[in-house]
């Protein structure tokens, strides 16, 4: 349903081919289309503005070589800039600390925390031979603890026994104890979903963080998120100082502009992407692919097929 940015820019620059350097006027017109494309891809407006300015600086005066059209030239500049903002080099999950390395999962309701907790545990177990313990601190959502327990059984990873009537902070303490005594390499803490303006629950998150001293705090966020991405990422980061982001539902056909918003708002790396409901649908983050997708020129199919 979206016309790709290169098609649109192609139209603007029709007849402009081979005219030397890009003038300020050419660039201005192109940037209106870039702005439009980014907003349609769900990049938060504040981030769009800053981004368009960066592209402007790079683009004015750039020589258009004879082998490409001015439109292609601008798309390339935009694409490179997207990759730069999204983070050029992958930042892997870090578990190198005195065991157990604790990983705290946070995010809005339904973003995919519990599923991703189990996927990461499975990956650490299978690929790095780690002994992992998972604990659900979600005392609110019906059957949330049972959900993690079932997933643990499916993937062959231990879960902290469920003790009804404990508070999330009490469970976090018990998990830390069990993590140490049980000789686990990694302790994964799943938490209840919360809206970032729920003062009480955000305070609870901060307290959980204080008692569990996590090595990684991962914000789990839906790739289909719209303009709110910047608000939620900023709030979670300010409150619990996240160490990275996991983008879920990348198997959807959303344009994924939220990735750019969250990265730009927090400066925190996108560490992993989740591409399905199954336990092995977890992949490393490739900024180039997300950039292609934001610009509507990506090969979404290959991602979906793997899901």
């Amino acid at each position: 349903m979206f016309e790709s940015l290169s098609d649109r820019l192609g139209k603007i620059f029709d007849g402009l081919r081979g005219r030397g350097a890009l003038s300020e006027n050419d660039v201005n017109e192109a940037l209106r289309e870039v702005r439009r494309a980014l907003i349609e891809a769900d990049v938060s407006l504040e981030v769009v503005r800053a981004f368009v300015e960066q592209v402007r600086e790079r683009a004015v005066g750039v020589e258009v070589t004879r082998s490409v059209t001015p439109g292609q030239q601008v798309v390339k500049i935009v694409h490179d800039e997207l990759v730069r903002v999204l983070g050029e080099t992958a930042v892997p999950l870090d578990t190198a600390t005195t065991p157990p390395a604790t990983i705290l999962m946070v995010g809005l309701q339904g973003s995919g925390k519990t599923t991703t907790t189990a996927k990461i545990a499975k990956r650490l177990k299978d690929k790095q031979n780690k002994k992992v313990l998972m604990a659900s601190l979600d005392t609110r959502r019906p059957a949330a603890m049972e959900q993690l327990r079932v997933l643990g059984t499916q993937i062959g990873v231990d879960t902290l026994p469920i003790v009804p009537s404990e508070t999330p902070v009490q469970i976090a303490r018990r998990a830390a104890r069990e993590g140490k005594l049980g000789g686990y390499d990694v302790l994964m803490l799943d938490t209840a979903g919360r809206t970032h303006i729920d003062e009480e629950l955000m305070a609870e998150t901060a307290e959980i963080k204080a008692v569990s001293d996590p090595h990684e705090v991962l914000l789990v966020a839906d790739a289909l998120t719209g303009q709110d991405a910047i608000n939620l990422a900023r709030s979670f980061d300010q409150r619990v100082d996240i160490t990275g982001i996991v983008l879920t539902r990348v198997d959807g056909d959303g344009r994924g502009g939220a990735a750019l918003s969250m990265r730009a708002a927090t400066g925190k790396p996108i560490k992993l992407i989740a591409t399905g409901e199954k336990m092995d649908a977890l992949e490393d983050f490739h900024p180039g692919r997300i950039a292609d997708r934001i610009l509507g020129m990506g090969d979404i199919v290959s991602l979906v097929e793997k899901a």
Partner: protein
Amino acid sequence: KRSSDQITGGITSVFTKRKLDAATLDELEDVLLQADLGMDTTSAIVETLRRDRFNRDISGEDVRAVLSDEVGKALTPVARPLVIDTAHKPFVILMVGVNGSGKTTTIGKLAQKFAAEGRTVMLAAGDTFRAAAIEQLEIWGRRTGAPVVAKPAGSDASGLAFDAVTRARAEGKDVLIIDTAGRLQNRDELMSELEKIIRVIRKVDPTAPHAVLLTLDATTGQNALNQVEIFGKRAGVTGLVMTKLDGTARGGILVAIARRFGLPVHFIGVGEGVDDLQPFQASDFAAAIAGKEQ
């Protein structure tokens, strides 16, 4: 209130302006874009304001009012309640939507509402796929006093739906609400499974399902348009419920959806509790998008 607080900042800066000039219109455009209305819908609304009101004297309060009026115009036709036709016994409601959008929770809230209206309700645990989805619905059933039809995890979802309609009919229930597993609309085989559930339900009652409700997460951006389009085509969606409006997302994509599809919007979800379901009110929703005081 919280969503209006957030944008009030944007509007306050135009408060002192005397005319609805180009700068004011630009700021209004930003307000709409940040509420997820998308480029086309935002441009159309701002264009209407430009045409009808450009350079007229206008106060800050009026700016909010005209914006809210304009958004309200798109939403008023779709603000329609869910009517339970008592000619059908049971009145079968099928709940569909992408993963994590709030289907199961909304079913719990609806069960409570129908029970309060004096109707007998039965629930069907049609999500046989996700870990502990059955247990989750069973807890909602206990909370609201509704019996839950379930089969072991991994069972065929359409078989479960068949059993549930048969049982609800035999027991003379007023309403049967069928939960389904979350699925992304671009997964063709999962959408086919949904079509199969509907075919099988019709073997028991050719007029069912009597309502197919699609839950949309208010945090979702432009992809919600695709969700409505594909779930509409494949599952015959009859109405929408927008969830998670208690966060900071304003769900403005609903305006674009209303303009494009005209599907009724029945309810909004404003929390995780059993009572956190409200009828959809076009004017309130529009006012929240425009940052207008109630």
